[in-house]
């Protein structure tokens, strides 16, 4: 079991109150901020949001599982995202996915045991003209292929 990061409740409270005005309507954006900070949604943070906004935890769970950007599990230090939009699909995105799955020894959606990589897929980041596209963290690799992607991953520790 991977150790969960400590949740900074003080900062979380500031976030909810100051940035999002304790407004239930901002729930999705509050969760986005938490997801960004901790790379996933830690349970203690969700409990806090639930109490603070007076929302049932089940409703928060509903949101967290409905929208694909949220993760309830801790994710790796580096997030690899393979674009599987239509343009990338017809230009071989699927093959990059297969190659990375076999190289990293994990299926898309999973995290390597050493927490180095999480392998994810996305349906289109809008760089269709440069497909196939893979992003690692915030860096976009355009007009790529499976060989180049495998090489690029060396740079991420």
């Amino acid at each position, binding site marked *: 079991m991977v150790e969960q990061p400590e949740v900074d409740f003080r900062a979380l409270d500031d976030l909810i109150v100051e940035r999002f005005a304790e*407004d*239930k*309507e*901002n*729930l*999705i*954006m509050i*969760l*986005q901020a938490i997801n960004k900070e901790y790379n996933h949604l830690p349970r203690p943070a969700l409990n806090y949001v639930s109490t603070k906004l007076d929302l049932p935890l089940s409703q928060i769970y*509903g*949101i967290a599982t*409905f*929208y*694909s*950007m*949220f993760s309830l599990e801790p994710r790796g230090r580096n997030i690899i995202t393979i674009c*599987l*939009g*239509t*343009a990338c*699909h*017809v*230009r*071989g995105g699927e*093959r990059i996915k*297969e*190659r990375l799955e076999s190289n990293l020894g994990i299926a898309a959606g999973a995290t390597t045991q050493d927490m180095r990589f999480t392998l994810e897929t*996305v*349906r*289109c*980041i*809008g*760089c*269709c*003209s*440069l*497909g196939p*596209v893979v992003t690692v963290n915030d860096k*976009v*690799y*355009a*007009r790529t*292929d*499976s*060989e180049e992607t495998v090489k690029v991953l060396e740079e991420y520790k």
Partner: protein
Amino acid sequence: MRITTKNDLQKIRAEVQSSLYVPSTLKLNIGMASCGIAAGAKEVYDKAHEIFDEQNVLVARTGCLGLCEEEPLVDIQAPGKPRIVYRRVSQDNIAELVEAHQKAEYLEKYVLGQMKDPRSVLEDDIENPLSAAFSTNGIPTLEEIPFYDKQLKIALRNCGYIDPESIEEYIGRSGYLSLFQALHEMEPEEIIEAIKISGLRGRGGGGFPTGIKWASCRKAHGEKRYVICNADEGDPGAYMDRSVLEGDPHSILEGMVIGAYAIGSHEGFIYVRNEYPLAVVRLVEAIKQAESCGLLGNDILGSGFNFTITISTGAGAFVCGESTALMRSLEGKVGRPRAKYIHTVEKGYHDSPSTLNNVETWANVPAIIEKGAAWYASLGTEKSKGTKVFSLVGKVKNTGLVEVPMGTSLRTIIFDIGGGILKKKEFKAVQTGGPSGGCVPTALLDLPVDYERLTQAGSMMGSGGMIVMDQDTCMVDVARYFLEFLQEESCGQCVPCREGIKRLLQILTDICAGKGEDGDIELLENISDTVVKLSLCALGGTAPNPILTTLAYFRDEYETHIYDKKCHSGVCKELFYYEIDEENCNGCHVCFRKCPQDAISGEKKELHTIDQELCSKCSICYEACKFDAIAIK
């Protein structure tokens, strides 16, 4: 700087025009939309700043000029000289290019073309500012290049021409003049009438007449009314809206304020998908600028009209592009669509009258007000007016964004503008309309593109994705791909969509895995019929389209998969194998070196062979072979 009079706008416009079009120092415009940045524009931009900041060279950024295939695009202009656009610029050659211009020269080998006339459609009241600088030295003009010569840019009028983070440059290109006219010289009903006459229809895919939507919303009872911009561009393979958001955000804001005034709304939202971080940054900046200039907020342009815009980001759910789901998501809830008999123009966001239009629709509005409804209505076909932006991608040479008058044929778009198919392969189909659309075959290439004709062909306009497919694309796999997408994205509240799509996908997956059986095609048709008729929202109602169109035009491929257990396109791995063609193989050894499985053996200059046991059918050898010696069997 608060702008209150038309004179204020005109003054800024006159000041900016000179620096925008005829700079007094050497100027670089670097295309910095996401596509440009992905291709390396940020490195070029940083490098240019590093070298030339001290040298009286102006390094500026713009949005995307559309020809994404050739990104990063950089245009360079010396005072009094033509403005030259370079293609595939990198941090390694940027210095060389600029230095050439410093010596009043240019580097022909990297040239895409020179800009003959930079004016937008809104600027026919001024002379072409580049006519004096135009050079007859043999550099083709952008307007003559096949990619651009059939285009007419209305929604994309400023993309690639201005700094998206500069409100002054937007005003320099006649921006916010339409808003002034609307607020000071027109009644709300007049605006709605103009939009009706223009024939503008929803560019997000539905094609509902915008003017009628606005009129119903204005008439609906409610204390508050809302205006929403749908920037949740979820169709895979479509990125028109991203380009406008990143390249010309003020055109959307201007359109929304005009719409809000026409409808009687004081509060608006832009719902942007989370996958577009740069679009959010540019929108936030644009809103701040517009607020500080008095173009958003209270007493806009001194008219007494108030309107604010808030940005909300999606969290990765395709179904939130559907209007009712989007409004639920805006309320901070799970985005599930509701039945259509309750109209959002009457009961939308918080059950108040709401008008939701797509990014491209909003960007068209200022142009219609400025140039007149009759002008807009004169473009296009009988029922589809104006222009449409398409993202031309897939197996086509010139990938990018193209804006053409409605009614332009698919052949013109793919073969003239797009330059035809990559690697001299054969065209097979073009997929339009995203997951709700369909695949249009060769026989229908002369189809003029508009809402009605694409629907008649079994596909749809959709938001404008146009994915070109060649002989190496398997149509059964394409159908499977879309159904897999839709299965993931179905919100799950109604049974026909949730269960129907799952079963359809199961059958398609089996067919692709070589487990297809007699009767599968009929079963697909049968379930599709149910899903179409009984689903609650458009996601389910159109979900079987990818199957139905591929069955209509490529039924033989399904039959070969099911009965012969063959995939001639070389996609479905259980249904083909690679073999070296003895006649074509010259033993160049490339495949041997590239194979990650070490499945290829053979000495240099001798015939190679593939070990079928080891081969993973990754296609690396097939793509790498220049002699057509890897055959699909």
